[in-house]
């Protein structure tokens, strides 16, 4: 029996490796997606290693040095300095930490409940269970994401944690709807019918038969969503309801820097560009992923 488990594991690892190699092949045919992936990896590494690779790590913490304030981009300060003398480049790298954290946490919090609810609703399509779940989903979807997130953060203390919770609350319905659509059509497939006729439990059918067939679109969406979530986080920070100064959130920095436009343009433009780059990277990777998961016909 243990012997069998080992064989099982060995075979499944081999299959997963092959699947991965094939996936990479398909992904790498898109040069732009590969570019996006490279940029993404660089950003993630930079964010992780921020304290060690930035020229002025201490500028990410409360720091003032009015002597160096308002300096334009130079070899010492790649992105220039802001109005209290902090190096913008270092702060941008640290700022990526917040952005990526927001993305990861929000999706972790929001995707799972959305997927589960969508799965249950899709499988029970036509019953009151579906109605209840999907109408609640509809209610959340009816409110524009930004407005809802605003409302929630405004009620609570504005900080990173609450910001993340607010966006997560706004985000789950999209997954619920996606998985609902997938699950309700999968439900009519012969292999699901067969499992039902055999007498398999509903739990088995939802988790083992339907869910594995929903994962690919969900993962693609998650990748594409990272960009939007980051943008939403930056927006909340921009209006003061997210990352609070003096912390180096990218949106926060844009807000501060925009007061100095157009004269000291570097204060706003570089953080904004940083946001654009990370979103673009995620989108390119997401597009590539979509091709990877696309069913091919020969």
């Amino acid at each position: 029996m243990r012997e069998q488990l080992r064989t099982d594991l060995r075979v499944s690892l081999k299959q997963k490796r092959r699947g991965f190699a094939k996936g990479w092949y398909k992904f790498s045919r898109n040069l732009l997606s590969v570019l996006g992936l490279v940029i993404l990896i660089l950003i993630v590494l930079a964010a992780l290693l921020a304290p060690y690779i930035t020229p002025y790590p201490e500028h990410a913490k409360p720091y003032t040095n009015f002597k160096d304030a308002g300096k334009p981009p130079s070899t010492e300060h790649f992105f220039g300095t802001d109005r209290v003398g902090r190096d913008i480049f270092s702060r941008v790298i640290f700022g990526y930490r917040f952005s990526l954290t927001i993305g990861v946490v929000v999706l972790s919090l929001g995707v799972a409940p959305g997927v589960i609810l969508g799965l249950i609703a899709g499988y029970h399509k036509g019953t009151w269970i579906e109605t209840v779940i999907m109408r609640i989903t509809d209610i959340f979807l009816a409110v524009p994401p930004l407005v809802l997130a605003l409302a929630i953060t405004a009620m609570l203390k504005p900080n990173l944690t609450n910001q993340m919770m607010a966006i997560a609350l706004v985000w789950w319905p999209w997954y619920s709807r996606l998985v609902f659509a997938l699950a309700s059509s999968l439900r009519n497939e012969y292999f699901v019918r067969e499992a039902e006729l055999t007498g398999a439990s509903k739990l088995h059918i939802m988790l083992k038969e339907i869910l594995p067939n929903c994962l690919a679109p969900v993962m693609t969406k998650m990748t594409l969503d990272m960009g939007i979530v980051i943008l939403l986080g930056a927006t909340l920070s921009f209006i003061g309801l997210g990352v609070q100064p003096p912390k180096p959130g990218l949106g926060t920095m844009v807000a501060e820097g925009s007061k100095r436009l157009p004269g000291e343009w570097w204060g706003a433009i570089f953080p904004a560009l940083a946001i654009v780059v990370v979103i673009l990277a995620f989108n390119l990777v997401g597009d590539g992923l979509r091709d990877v998961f696309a069913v091919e016909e020969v």
Partner: protein
Amino acid sequence: MTDTILVVDKLKKYFPTKRGTVKAVDNISFSVATGETIGLVGESGSGKTTTAQCVIGIYPPTDGEILFKGQTISEAFSKRSKALKRDIRIVFQDPGSSLNPKRSIKQILSVPLKVHRVATKKDHLTKIKSLLAMVELPPDEYMYKYPQAIGGGEKQMVAIARALATNPSFVLLDEPTSALDVSVQGKIINLLMKLQQDLNLTYLFITHDLSLMRNVASRVAIMYLGKLCEIAPTVEFFQNPTHPYTKMLLSAIPVVSQEEKALKPTKIASRGEIPSPVNVPSGCSFHSRCSEKMDMCAQDDPVMVEIGEGHVTRCHLYQDTKVAASIEQEEGVHAQDPVDQPRGDG
């Protein structure tokens, strides 16, 4: 006297839709003996698939009864006992979608074993291997494969193995080889026949391929727009068709040899489109396409009459044959002795 394993009595299945009621199955009755292969044939809208779906429990009947081994099974699926789900199994038509593409064959086959506790977890593996061996697929090679990696014929073999995993007594085969190439079909059909002998199975075999039916079924029933037109033992069905629809269908079969051409009934040109089941013609539903139509056909719906040994037909042309037509409808047709297999005898 052989046992009757399944009795379908005045079965009706209607689907209410926006455009009207679809009378998918409209008052059919027949019975099946243990160990026989009853063939159900018909074109789109005939109701053959819906009939199978009612038997297996996908739909509860709108009216009428289904008795399996003497017990009524026609209530809602949720009321079906686990033992029943173990005993009646189905093999679907499309091998492409009857196996979950995200699960390996080992995982697929372990589901019925787990649900019905056919073997303990430890013995699952041995059982799966023996199932694969039973359908002549090398177990070690196929256990870990995913459906996309194997051909259509092999997928159907897995579907058959899955159906037989619970040691059932009755198997519904809904066009099991229609999606497959002819060179692969034979192996599967012969496998099914062999398994039927070895495991004493009863089959309800649905197909539109009459040439295949000729070689597989012991009795054939033909349906049109939800009603049974004719039921007869196979040889009789092909040599002596009585219902005009049967004749039309038989004469339309594409065959490959002159020998076979000679066996077909005189060419009755197919006419007309199959009416929609929402809009069934009045009287005998076939009258709009029938070449032997009489005046009464548009008014009255004929009843089943027995015109030979185990041979019944539902057509005004044969209404004179008086064998208590109404009683016949009451009790359903009696099953033919299954020893009378069509293979080998011309």
